[in-house]
């Protein structure tokens, strides 16, 4: 609250879209925290700090802003500090230094320092959590587990039952309401965990490796269900994962952590195409880029294409001539003087009419779809923005470059 008033108005507006913000957050476990601070500032590693002070460095100098309605994935190997900073959002872990702001009732509250009553209010209404090992209470039925948060909040029974039934239907467990948690499979138990987290209608959902304990098929299914649900409910989700495929599939933004520090935060494409350091590069080396990369990440921009008298020349000898109108829209094409056909492709399936000479596709065409198009027709692909203006070219060379992960 106090931090809000000191912020200039334009900054406050930016913040209104912020759900969670970490500002210079250090998390240290141990007694001699004060001695560890100067070492953290000097950039000392976790081992050095442990040897010198006996403190375990959980996270150092974490700065991260998560927008409302966004899915942010905290990524890293075990021990990299991803769960540690996740748990600072509802103060299951104490922050040694820095601030963790959470958007609560229209203001940003510093969870790291707020008083107990406010913390409880935030935990009851704004931030809920899904645990890796589900954290279900074994002596309670599924229904009673889902209603747990509401019960703590003191919601009247009738209202609680209504909400619980609604959430159970949402995760498809209505028929299981009166079973005990252990009578369900792992995937179902985690759906109970999800329903419990949804039940309090919190805006921010913390998910601590929620699908890691499940087998791959179930995991994939639950990821799809989560994305599907997210379409409808638009929560802010902070998701911890050690699985890069999962991170790339789920996350709008991804923060990669190592040794308690964030080494790179950005979109999936950023991380794939422009890894910040050798660690990240090593991490993403074996990733399948097809589902992540889109045309705009690999294309040769329109400004870099060869031009001749207002038209754009493609092909090695410039035998393909694309005429652009005043708005920048491609209007016609001629091949060696013969009039060609300009055909729009379906962006999802990559299907295109057979008699095309040049393909037009939206800018965010997936690389996978682009390859399918090339394979089918062998024609160059022109990428256009939402207004139909030419943005760039995606041809063999661009696709190969993208696959080899050499940023353009």
């Amino acid at each position: 609250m106090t931090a809000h008033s000191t912020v200039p108005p334009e900054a406050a507006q930016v913040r209104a879209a912020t759900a969670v913000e970490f500002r210079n957050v250090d998390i240290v476990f141990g007694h001699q925290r004060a001695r560890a601070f100067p070492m953290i500032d000097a950039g000392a590693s976790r081992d050095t700090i442990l040897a010198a002070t006996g403190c375990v460095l959980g996270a150092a100098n974490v700065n991260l802003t998560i927008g409302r309605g966004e899915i942010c994935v905290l990524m890293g190997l075990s021990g990299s500090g991803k769960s540690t900073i996740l748990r600072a959002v509802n103060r299951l872990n104490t922050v040694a230094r820095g601030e963790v702001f959470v958007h609560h009732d229209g203001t940003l509250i510093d969870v790291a320092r707020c008083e107990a009553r406010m913390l409880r209010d935030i935990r009851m209404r704004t931030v809920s959590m899904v645990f890796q090992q589900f954290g279900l209470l074994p002596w309670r039925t599924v229904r009673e587990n889902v209603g747990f948060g509401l019960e703590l909040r003191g919601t009247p029974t009738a209202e609680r039952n209504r909400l619980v039934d609604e959430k159970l239907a949402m995760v498809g467990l209505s028929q299981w309401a009166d079973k005990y948690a252990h009578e369900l499979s792992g995937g179902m138990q985690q759906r109970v965990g999800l329903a419990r987290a949804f039940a309090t209608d919190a805006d921010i959902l913390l998910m601590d490796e929620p699908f890691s304990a499940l087998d791959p098929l179930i995991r994939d299914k639950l990821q799809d269900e989560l994305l599907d649900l997210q379409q409808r409910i638009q929560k802010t989700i902070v998701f911890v994962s050690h699985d890069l495929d999962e991170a790339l599939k789920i996350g709008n933004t991804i923060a990669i952590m190592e040794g308690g520090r964030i080494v790179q935060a950005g979109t999936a494409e950023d991380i794939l195409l422009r890894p910040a350091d050798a660690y990240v590069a090593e991490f993403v080396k074996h990733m399948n880029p097809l589902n992540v990369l889109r045309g705009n990440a690999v294309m040769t921009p329109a400004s870099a294409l060869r031009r001749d008298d207002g038209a754009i020349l493609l092909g090695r000898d410039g035998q393909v001539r694309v005429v652009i109108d005043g708005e920048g829209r491609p209007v016609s094409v001629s091949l060696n003087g013969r009039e060609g056909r300009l055909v729009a492709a379906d962006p999802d399936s990559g299907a295109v009419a057979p008699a095309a000479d040049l393909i037009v596709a939206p800018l965010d065409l997936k690389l996978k779809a682009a390859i399918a198009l090339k394979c089918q027709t062998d024609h160059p692909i022109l990428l256009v923005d939402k207004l139909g203006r030419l943005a760039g070219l995606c041809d063999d060379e661009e696709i190969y470059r993208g696959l080899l992960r050499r940023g353009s």
Partner: protein
Amino acid sequence: MYDWLVDHKIPLGQWLKAVVDFLSTHAQAVFDLISAVLGWMIGSLTDLLLFVPPLLLIALCAMGAYLVHRSIGLAVFILGALLLVANLGYWDATIETLSLVLCATFVCVLIGVPVGIAAAHRPWLYTAIRPVLDLMQTIPTFVYLIPTLVLFGLGVVPGLISTVIFALPAPIRLTHLGISSVPSALVEAGEAFGATRRQLLFKVELPYALPTIMAGITQCIMLSLSMVVIAALVGSDGLGKPVVRALNTVNVSMGFEAGMAIVILAIVLDRVCKRPDRAARRSRKA
């Protein structure tokens, strides 16, 4: 050297005696009050149980056991066992012993469960009380029987106090064990949804620890039962009395019959207090 050591005896016993004397002269009213309350409690329970016709009470016990455990075998066993006790002529004594055991267990739970919870939440407290608990269980019963006798007078109350001292460590230990073995994941789940300390205790910790606490209470009952003979020495009524009398008169048959009645009571209480199958199955799987 050795002579010097022997000559300069530390008056350990004298000190304790001084404490007991001090208490009995200055705080006698307090002990009288405690004595009156506890005596009244046991007396009324005994009267109540004896007011019911024995055969009706036996039938009620068997039916109650059936309702809780859904086991015909157990009900039949309890019926037979209690009828045998009545047949031997120890019904009144059994009831007196039962009310002593129940009162002792009640007091133990009243003190032991809160202490166990407090100790589980504060490791230093458990470190502090552990030697006391060890002492309570190892020190020979007769040793503290003497001061309790001085403070509370003859009768059932010093018997109850001695029984409580002996049986109290069991519920404390098992409550501590139960509460401190609650998985941190469950505690965190409670915290993450905004549970207060009280909600955490009543909605997460106690339900999780309940089977262990119940085991502690069952153990407490058994330990109390093992004290009936000792309690009889200071004047408690019950099954201990015929045993003591049989010992003094070398009466083999009376000693055997009374001992048999104690064993039967112990088995019946143990079977009844065992957790119902449903709960057992649930916690095993979980």
